[in-house]
């Protein structure tokens, strides 16, 4: 089964234009494991979403099947084998 990581338009150039990245999953995994798998070939993309400690950046939000991971268990949030993970740039800035 395949989970999907959907990228915001601003980050797609870092994955050769891909709008979403598939991750093959046989069983539920953590969000960290799914992002590691999705971003494996794209380390610069990975660094835009998470810092070197693995934490999701402050003004980036990640939704797992519509649930804000930061309000759940962060990078330890469970991701089902057919889940959709949205990476979103938060509404902030000036």
């Amino acid at each position: 089964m395949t989970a999907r990581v959907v990228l915001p338009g601003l980050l797609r150039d870092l994955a050769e234009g891909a709008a979403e990245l598939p991750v093959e999953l046989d069983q539920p995994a953590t969000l960290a494991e799914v992002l590691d798998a999705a971003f494996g070939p794209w380390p610069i993309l990975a660094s835009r979403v998470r810092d070197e400690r693995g934490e999701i950046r402050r003004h980036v939000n990640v939704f797992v099947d519509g649930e804000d991971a930061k309000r759940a268990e962060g990078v330890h949030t469970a991701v089902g084998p057919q889940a959709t993970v949205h990476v979103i740039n938060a509404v902030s800035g000036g």
Partner: protein
Amino acid sequence: MGRMTQTIVGIGTRKGLWLARSEDRRRWELDGPHFLMSEVLSLLFDTRRETPRMVVGFRSSHWGPSLQHSDDLGTTWVEHPEGSIRFPEDTDTALKATWQLVADPHDPQVVWAGTEPHGLWRSEDGGETFELNRGLWDHPHRTQWGEGAGGGAIHTVLPSPTDADSMLVAMSAGGVYNTRDGGQSWTPGNTGIHAYFMPHDPWPEFGQCVHKVARDSAVPTRLYAQNHRGVYRSDDDGVTWTSIEAGLPTNFGMTAVANPAQGDSVWLVPIASDGERIPPGAVLQVQRTDDAGATWRTQDAGLPHPSYTNVLRDAAGTDQHDEPGLYFGTRNGEVYASTDGGDSFSRIAEQLPDVLCVRAVTLQ
């Protein structure tokens, strides 16, 4: 005669990098923005290499910090896939921003970086990858270093041009630290610097809020420090300091720039006070000394009056002409240039976002 020179002024702003280019330092062409929507906090023109290299440190409020370099003067940019500056896992720390990039005066491959949080980093590949200086990171004072208004960072890195084992770093708010053993150990160098904001101990060993330090171009052990309320000179390579603020309109400001063509000559850009961050008397001005701070004179020809903007700690720099150009950028997005030592200024850019850093290079 006949050799074409080009001057490039790199203008790092709150929302990207612009490059102003000129062949005569009168007519300027502006190129940008590069890294749109990123705060460009640090910039190095590295002319030690066969091909000049630009290294730029910036951060996006969304996507975090990044460091990139260009070997074609800004046409294309390269980012290291694993990240140039990454805190080691055992530090449990994430990089927030790179505030300073400096070429080592002894080894043409070595570039130094100062970061937020308070880290000093050394690159041996021209600024592509860096290693954390553990001597400073492990310093017992580090947990007591504070944050200035812009954050807590190593904002000044001054390697000694004569002693490869000697270097000064400065931070807000922690003060000046020196190493004499190549970065293995670090000693605070703040004797004589007043910290009015620490009323229980206004002459502390460390904790001063130094804003910028500049090294004299003729006497390498002579340094000038613009502090949060106070301007000082050191004649012993950053160990002890004496006030040189007499004669200045105000002792507050952010930046200090040494004149690369003349010893004992320094420019400051005064700000009325920490509680009134506008130019003194609303006159945007530079203060210049030619006698190591004994006397100062106002330079404001060509600068706007009245003005209610100011100049941040790294938003001023010089080029490498025999008569060096002085450049500074303001928080309201204007950049001024002088090619006569500050006696007159002209505006070379306007309508930019607030200027965070300015660096200039002369290329043959």
